[in-house]
């Protein structure tokens, strides 16, 4: 099955500049490449890419996750459903079965094991996916419903929108646990964005561990270079990790970001810098694309 080249932009620490890098990369790819560029915001808890790419939204889809519904008339109160559930999402109290949809992982186990076929499934809304265009870039993001605890099911659905051709840039959520993993897995290359501080380095190491466990190729972008110390660079050198770009600690970049502007569009040197980053990644994954 054919699929576009996928670059995921991730980090251990929040606020290092994933969205800055991902949206600017998508922008330069969109204006430069002949092949299709797609930007997918998988930070469904706090999606920000739309602020910078300002897409015209053309389609909104409600996303649901399956949760059990019990037909009391058929229920024999045997408790098999509660026994099989690992997540305490269904319980037998006296002769009644109670469900806790927020805890349900949608495994379908309760429905399968019920001897009287008393359990069916219904969809519970967990969020929305919005799709549109931003000056030639296909834009997709997911937005998790407030109060919905689990983001991976929505992230999985958002990633189904990865097109068959061209270049896709995924903006991942921060961290190294299941939401981040769901966003980055099966990507062709990961960019880890970090900052040159003790917190930045600590969390970069966690992210590197995560990517090595997933056996995914990656490189690093150091954002706000000059704001801290050299330890992040020493680490990358010792671990033979390529630093593909450094963004200086530039107040103008911060101000453009604050107002929702793309650095590559608002500040002359940055278009070339992000093009260069795109080229370095493309060399790393050996992609055929014209800039």
């Amino acid at each position, binding site marked *: 099955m054919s699929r576009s080249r996928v670059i995921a932009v991730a980090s251990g620490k929040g606020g290092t500049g994933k969205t800055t890098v991902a949206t600017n990369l998508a922008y330069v790819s969109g204006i430069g490449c002949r092949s299709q560029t797609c930007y997918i915001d998988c930070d469904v808890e*706090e999606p920000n890419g739309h602020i910078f790419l300002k897409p015209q939204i053309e389609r909104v889809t409600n996303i649901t996750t399956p949760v059990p519904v019990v037909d009391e008339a058929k229920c024999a109160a045997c408790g098999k459903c509660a026994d099989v559930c*690992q997540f305490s999402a269904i319980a037998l109290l006296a002769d009644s079965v109670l469900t806790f949809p927020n805890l349900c992982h949608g495994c379908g186990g309760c429905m399968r094991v019920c001897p009287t076929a008393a359990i069916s499934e219904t969809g519970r809304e967990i969020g929305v996916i919005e799709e549109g265009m931003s000056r030639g870039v296909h834009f997709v993001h997911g937005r*998790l419903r407030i109060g919905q605890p689990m983001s991976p099911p929505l992230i999985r659905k958002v990633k189904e929108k990865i097109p068959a051709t061209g270049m896709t840039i995924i903006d991942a959520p921060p961290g190294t646990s299941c939401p981040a993993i769901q966003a980055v897995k099966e990507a062709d290359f990961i960019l880890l964005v970090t900052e040159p501080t003790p917190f930045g380095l600590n969390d970069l190491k966690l992210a590197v561990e995560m990517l090595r466990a997933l056996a995914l190729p990656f490189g690093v972008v150091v954002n706000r270079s000059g704001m801290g110390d050299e330890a992040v660079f020493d680490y990358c050198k010792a671990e033979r990790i390529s630093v593909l770009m450094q963004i200086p600690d530039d107040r103008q970049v911060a101000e453009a970001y*604050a107002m929702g502007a793309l650095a590559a569009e608002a500040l002359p040197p940055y278009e070339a810098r992000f093009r260069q980053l795109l080229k370095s990644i493309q060399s790393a994954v050996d992609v055929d694309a014209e800039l």
Partner: protein
Amino acid sequence: MKELVVISGKGGTGKTSIVASFAALATNKVMADCDVDAADLHLVLSPEIKLRADFSGGKQASVVADKCIGCGKCLAVCRFDAVTLGGPPNDVLQKTYCIDSINCEGCGVCEYYCPAGAIDFSDKINGEWFISATRHGPMVHAKLGVAAENSGKLVTLVKREAKQLAEKNAADLVLVDGSPGIGCPVIASIVGASMVLIITEPTMSGLHDLNRVADLAGHFRIPAAVCVNKCDISPEMTAEIDRHAVSRGLDVLGHIHYDSAVTRAQIAGQSVVEFGESNAADDIRALWNRTSKALTYNSKSSNQEE
């Protein structure tokens, strides 16, 4: 006893830096680092571990290749794309089934249906947690394993242990460093809080994410207040956030100026208020004064005697 949880919605706004300073300023408290995915508070508080324990967030399935009969029932029932025919050969089969540990959701349905008893379904150690001593008092913290699930459960455990320790020590406050986002680790960290303090930054992303996390606090009926960090990066956006906070009934308890002292303190392994004089240190002290008053006020308003 009060519980203050510091969250942000958006990552990188300064939660941990501020909590570290609060730890230096607050008296008679227990700290809890609930950012179990990417914990950083220990880098400033230099904890001395007194107790360490394993954490298991759930179970994981794996195929015992020798017992596999190749029926494929596990593949048929798995909803998480965790099963493939990629395991080693055994006496009868060229290939056995195997389960990908990253994709395995821990639901156990494959084990329930395996006719050959070939699936091992047991507790997975996902991480570890610690009770430590620091120069500012006791701290409960944790480390989630690489590629681990169920961070919400670990957060709940850290909070419970911190509360128990606070009760034992007759502490007045549990001070919680939260994580970014609005998902289950954040929900687990804010449930039961006396108040959440939302640290934001004067950017459009900061405002967008502030709204979502404030909605989350509202959804769980937890009082919330706001602090704008790095406020002078954009005075216009700071004013916008102030206006917006007021319009949705959130108190703004502080503005912190951008200050290189914050990073220099971090590099020195100290909190900002310990690292000598700076604008940021003054701003954080003022924030702490207003926050501790707001915490006391919230309790008074529910024990009306006037």
